[in-house]
């Protein structure tokens, strides 16, 4: 009898779609990102990311700065891997100037960029745990990252915005006994990976929250221009370090881990494996560290000839590219940054559709964006 009454009472209940704002101030957005979600119950039927809260107009700033001055600003795009940003800017300008850095500089660049990749993936590992509800991995990840930042502080004097890789080479040679410290860090780091597996990777709750969630198919990944671990998570073996080597990457032996299903789990797993590969690369680069100069001969005032170039590298978040046009002046005529975070984020509007609200944060975290790079 009671059920009948409830049924009759419920018949005139109105159901309607609901708009939910995620962000701009929300810890899981890792910066200031707003995602407007349209919900039917707890299922997402449309999602629209809103970006631009951190826009600083670095492309416009570049047009009013000399080439070396722009290097300082490049640190601020992806502030978790500033070495990569320095490197891609230097590669672009070196192409225009047609100079080649010495072999030792190439090795030092590889060492720094790969250490930075580990640091950047550690931030992902830690914050992704928090996103899903595990706080402890974060403390472990930041303990390790601290050691890398200490190493960087010794070579460059800074902990976030290094400005270490310079046009034509690097800022300075390594300090005495730095190689030893780096080696002991790598040895120590290798023992941490099994720890991470017991902490998070092998955790059944974590696996339940990530497997089969936020699936990005191969076709979707390509049409959205997705690069980096997100693309490899979908099972496409594409890594600029292998496919278009720069800075003598062809000399080092390493594997390119790829996922199978393109879900959050695969994107996570690829990053964890990449850290292990980076350790291998740094070891090889330290072993084969050549003697000699760390800088090519670069004129004091840089005035590249007319021309245009596109330089790209495999940054921790994907293929980071710089497109510059030079008009034979000491300032670039046009600079465009192909920011991997910005382009990877585009896919969010499609892969969120059909998911539950509780999986939004898991999906967003697995794309691993840095808002400083999205908005530039």
């Amino acid at each position, binding site marked *: 009898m009671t059920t009948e009454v409830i049924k009759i009472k419920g018949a005139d209940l109105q159901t309607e779609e609901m708009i939910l704002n995620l962000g701009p101030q929300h810890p899981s957005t890792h910066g200031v990102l707003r995602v407007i979600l349209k919900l039917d119950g707890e299922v997402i039927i449309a999602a629209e990311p809103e970006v631009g809260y951190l826009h600083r107009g670095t492309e416009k700033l570049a047009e009013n700065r000399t080439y070396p001055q722009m290097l300082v600003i490049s640190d601020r795009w992806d502030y978790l891997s500033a070495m990569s940003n320095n490197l891609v800017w230097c590669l672009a300008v070196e192409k225009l100037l*047609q100079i080649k850095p010495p072999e030792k500089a190439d090795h030092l660049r590889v060492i720094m960029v790969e250490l930075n990749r580990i640091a950047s993936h550690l931030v992902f590992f830690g914050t992704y745990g928090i996103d899903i509800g595990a706080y402890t991995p974060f403390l472990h990840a930041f303990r390790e990252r601290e050691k890398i930042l200490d190493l960087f502080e010794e070579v460059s004097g800074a902990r976030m915005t290094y400005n270490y890789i310079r046009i034509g080479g690097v800022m300075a040679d390594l300090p005495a006994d730095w190689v030893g410290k780096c080696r002991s860090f790598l040895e120590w780091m290798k023992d941490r990976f099994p720890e991470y597996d017991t902490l998070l990777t092998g955790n059944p709750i974590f696996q339940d929250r990530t497997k089969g969630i936020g699936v990005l198919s191969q076709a979707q990944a390509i049409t959205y*221009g997705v690069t980096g671990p997100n693309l490899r998570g979908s099972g496409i073996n594409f890594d600029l370090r292998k496919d278009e080597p720069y800075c003598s990457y062809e000399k080092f032996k390493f594997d390119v881990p790829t996922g199978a299903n393109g879900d959050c789990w695969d994107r996570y797993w690829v990053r964890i494996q990449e850290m292990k590969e980076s350790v291998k690369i740094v070891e090889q680069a330290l072993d084969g560290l050549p003697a000699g100069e760390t800088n090519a001969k670069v004129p004091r005032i840089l005035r590249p000839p007319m021309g245009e170039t596109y330089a790209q590298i495999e940054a921790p978040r994907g293929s980071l590219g710089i497109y510059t*046009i030079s008009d*034979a002046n000491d300032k670039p005529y046009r600079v*465009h940054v192909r920011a991997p975070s910005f382009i990877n984020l585009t896919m969010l509007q499609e892969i969120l559709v059909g998911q539950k609200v509780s999986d939004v944060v898991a999906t967003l975290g697995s794309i691993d964006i840095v808002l400083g790079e999205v908005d*530039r």
Partner: protein
Amino acid sequence: MTPASLFSTIRTHISDIREIPAPEAVAGAPAHEGKPYRDPLLFVDCPASKWLDLARFLKEDPQLDFDFLLMVTAADYLAPAPKMDVIYLLFSMKHRHKMFVKLSVPREGASVPSVMGLWKTADWQEREVYDMYGIRFDGHLNLKRILMWDGFTGWPMRKDYVHIPDRYDD
């Protein structure tokens, strides 16, 4: 494929395109300026009216197979002739070749067809070009500002953009 063979393949299907020659040193330029440099890739100039045909051909022809749109951007020129270029960098995952396509458009009231239907990554990148340069993309489903706020006036990346002082200056 080499740039030359890419160009000849495309040329047989779309005849309106033109290869952009590499820049040459200005006669009488001082020696310290050096030789101009441009990436050894194919640079093609295409009229905006033919861009959609060309884009579809580039994507769908099995020999070319440009399935990956790496970058969309633009550049503004005031001299010698005022114009704007919309610049596309295409890449093929299968054949691993790249090429640039440039569309020259007038500085005022310019519009080019959107390629959002072919490469979804064009969605945000075209919005960014619109936001920064004011070039409209016909057929784009959500053409509005992306990095600047909605009430912003002017096109900040244009060479003749003048900043109007506001309460943040001082």
